[in-house]
């Protein structure tokens, strides 16, 4: 696929920050990890053969009726509570009506003016400064099917000659979380948005209501942004950017839109109210559907479903059962692990690292070592493979085992890297790899001594320097010994032998 380029004029980000205030609004869809769909018993599993997870209800066949998935309601309430929201004592579903082939009923069952949760607040920290993201509402709705447009160059509907529909996703439960306008983010708007998404991801995972995998669409963000000239109070025209499928893109897409809108406004232009699509490969947004004419969804209360009326007792029971929230957990672990703020920031900045380090520590590894392996060697491996840390084929317990072998002196750090690579390559447990590959450090003094002698003989100049008291030159000889031993030597012991032999 060729990378497209954009011809948008962009203003320098710092200049935008000097001249404008940023107002953000984030609409996030969380796909719930319930076993069955929102209104029927069909599986929610991702990736089945097209139209195999369907029934008369999720296909919207004549006569079919929805029945609410109680687990989904429970998940929505727990999400609402975790966002600090009020939970509605009584609320209804509503039909949002528009025609589109991916919607079997040509209306989406959603919630309109009676969301299950409303008025919450999320507190975040970015670079040591606290920010508040006010939550407007969290409501329940159903997902649509997927269209596959065939015959065109772009895979989009324009230019295609026919479309195929897959309704496996139709009726999968969603919770949509909508913020109020987010102000006062100064120059950090895009970072705050990213931190908010990371917070939601960690939150839904902690709750166990979703895996929160952005790349699989389990967490989808529509990012709204507008600019207003400094000193003014009237909100500017916003754009809504879709197709933002990673934490990095949330930040990048907002930064791009801010710079683009800055250039439009500075040039005397008017920002068009529209949907914009984020082009991940090119790093820019393109114009989508115009939203200048508000669409009329003809919402009305869903007559096929009875109102949801969660009892106070149930809500309090769910509140009492909430897990530790991500920010609290991070603060606790930082203190337990004695990490500096800087060290902790690296952990927080790497997707999935916190939980993996926690599991590794739980498997008996020292926190610092766990942090080291996951953020260096394994982060690099994940990067190379283009996957998330948690998708690497290595378990926290295996990382802990590697560290145990290092501490026992069986392997050194360098060998440990080799072992980790081998685990990732599927060669089995660290212990087995050390054994099968013969990677254990050589502790046979005779062999070591012979290798040191050989290195001295081969490097008379260096040996002379050391004899003359320049012990820092020993490094060159250590390297030669390690090479000779295939890396399987304890460097400290080698150094001791060299100094002893040459003094």
């Amino acid at each position, binding site marked *: 696929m060729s990378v497209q380029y954009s011809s948008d004029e962009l203003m320098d980000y710092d200049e935008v920050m000097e001249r404008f205030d940023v107002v953000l609004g984030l609409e996030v869809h969380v796909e719930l990890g319930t076993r069955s769909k929102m209104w029927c018993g069909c599986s929610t599993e991702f990736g089945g053969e097209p139209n195999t997870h369907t029934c008369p209800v999720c296909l919207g066949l004549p006569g*079919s*009726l929805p029945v609410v998935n109680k687990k989904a309601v429970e998940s929505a309430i727990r999400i609402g509570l975790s966002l600090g929201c009020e939970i509605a004592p009584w609320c209804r579903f509503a039909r949002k009506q528009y*025609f589109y082939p991916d919607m079997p009923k040509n209306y989406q069952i959603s919630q309109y003016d009676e969301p299950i949760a409303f008025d919450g607040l999320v507190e975040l920290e970015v670079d040591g400064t606290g920010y508040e993201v006010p939550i407007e509402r969290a409501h329940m709705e159903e997902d649509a099917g997927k269209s596959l447009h065939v015959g065109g160059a772009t895979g989009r509907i324009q230019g295609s*000659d026919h*479309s195929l529909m897959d309704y496996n996703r139709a009726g999968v439960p969603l919770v949509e979380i909508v913020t109020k306008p987010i102000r006062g983010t100064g120059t950090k708007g895009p970072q705050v948005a990213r931190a908010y998404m990371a917070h939601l991801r960690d939150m839904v995972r902690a709750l166990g209501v979703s895996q929160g995998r952005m790349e699989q669409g389990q967490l989808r963000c529509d990012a709204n942004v507008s600019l207003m000239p400094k000193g003014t109070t009237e909100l500017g025209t916003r754009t809504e950017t879709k197709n933002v499928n990673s934490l990095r893109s949330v930040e990048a897409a907002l930064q791009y839109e801010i710079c683009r809108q800055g250039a439009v406004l500075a040039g005397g232009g008017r920002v068009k109210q529209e949907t914009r699509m984020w082009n991940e490969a090119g790093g820019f947004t393109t114009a989508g559907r115009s939203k200048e004419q508000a669409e009329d969804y003809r*919402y*009305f209360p869903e007559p096929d479903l009875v109102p949801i009326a969660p009892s106070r007792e149930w809500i309090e029971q769910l509140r009492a059962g909430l897990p530790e929230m991500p920010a609290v957990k991070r603060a606790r672990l930082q203190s337990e692990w004695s990490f500096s703020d800087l060290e902790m920031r690296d952990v927080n900045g790497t997707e999935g690292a916190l939980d993996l380090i926690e599991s590794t520590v739980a498997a008996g590894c020292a926190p610092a070592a766990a942090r080291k392996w996951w953020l260096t060697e394994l982060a690099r491996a994940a990067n190379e493979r283009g996957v998330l840390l948690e998708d690497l084929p290595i378990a926290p317990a295996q990382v802990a085992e590697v560290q145990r072998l290092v501490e026992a002196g069986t392997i050194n750090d360098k060998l440990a890297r080799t072992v980790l690579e081998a685990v990732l390559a599927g060669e089995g447990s660290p212990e087995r790899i050390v054994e099968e590959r013969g990677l254990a450090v050589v502790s046979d003094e005779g062999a070591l001594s012979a290798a040191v002698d050989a290195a001295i003989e081969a490097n008379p100049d260096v040996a002379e320097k050391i004899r003359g008291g320049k012990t820092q030159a020993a490094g060159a000889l250590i390297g030669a010994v390690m090479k000779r031993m295939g890396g399987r030597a304890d460097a400290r012991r080698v150094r001791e032998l060299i100094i002893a032999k040459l003094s």
Partner: protein
Amino acid sequence: MNRDICTATALELGRRIRTGELTSVETTRAFLDRIEAVEPAVHAFLSVDGERALAQAAAIDALVAAGDPLPSPLAGVPVAVKDLLCYEGLPTTAASRMLEGWVPPYNSTVVQRLLDAGLVILGKTNLDEFATGSSTESSAFGPTHNPWDLDRVPGGSGGGSAAALAAFETPLAIGTDTGGSIRQPASMTGTVGVKPTYGAVSRFGIIAMASSLDQAGPCARTVADAAALHAVIAGHDPADSTSLDEPVPDVVAAADSADVAGMRIGVVAQLGGEGYAAGVEQRFGESVELLRAAGAEIVEVSCPHFTQALATYYLIMPSELSSNLARYDAMRYGLRVGDDGTNSAEAVMRLSRGAGFGAELKRRIILGTYALSAGYYDAYYGSAQKMRTLIARDFAAAFEQVDVLVSPVAPTTAFKLGERVGDPLAMYAGDLCTLPANLAGVAAGSFPAGLAPEDGLPVGFQVMAPVLGDDRVYRVGAALEGLAGTADLCGQVPDLPVEGSGEAAK
């Protein structure tokens, strides 16, 4: 016609099949023959599945032969089902071109309960397209004729089920009632039809017209038959969220007792008087007097908001209908027009809906779409919902004073085919007595009160009872049936022309 079988009550047929006096296959055959003979004149059915009906009948006969217990008192008895209920394997069309030939892959709960109770499904009956009408004339497959006078409508939307009963093509039928579609056809054909309490019978698998009003119910020629069928189809269904999780009132016992002594019966002041045909008023008045003579206490009750029921209904019903019918877009099933490679999906949707829906349906879709539009919602749908609450309060206040409310079912007897087709308002106005019960979700039934002296056509008597008071409807209906002697009213249906022979079919 095999008079012995076709004019017998359903319970009598059930008893004879159970005792081996008669087989279900013989019974089923008799009705299939009758259908074949009179359908060209009546056109009550949209499809007949004789083969499967006979197989179902044979299965019941095998149980009887083996001495095994039968699943219900109606086991082996034929039933006709309005073509709005999904019945796996047989086309379910809603009498619309849009669904012509569509075969559902699943059974509606009502159909499943009929099968589980051992009833034999003869076929699917005609209706107004998607149940939108009061005469069965908006069926895309041609109108049904009233057996009492073939030039007249059988009422609607369930004219097929009612006409099939009056023509002795079936002993039992299933209808659905959104604004009177069971009761008004019953009234116009001299048969019994009950709209149970909203939520008493599962809506799962019944093609929706207006979800908050739709309710399926029993149609029969006698009150006891209707009650027995009611008992088969009613009861909680987890597949319908609006289904009531409450015990079904003992309607069979109520129909059996038929005792109104000491009952307080309220005559609704707003449903009668000007605009009501003389014969309708007369038979209604006589019925009330019969009930009084049987020991009921009669009082006049005022339900002031009932006068707004028509306007309220014609906002709520089209609003829900416009939404419920959105799914018929040619993408997944049903009629598809214009898919020739030059049209977008959107254009195919438009062309298909344009071609697949009839005029009355389009009128209601447009009304409903308008009523739900931003800026109009509060004035139309919103205020209609408020009025609906007031109508429900009228009922609640009335039921503080009385056990049941009574009124005529329709202001007139059956009208001529074509008479009101060009005048939707006159057609709609004919429903004003039946609409309040749907808007409030209460139980209501139509029972034969005799024939109007001026035209010799049947007149119906409506009984309305509180939510889950369905048994009271049957109690009063059964009492009237006994007092007025209307159990065999359809015996007075004139002879029908018979296909091919030119002989009278009766």
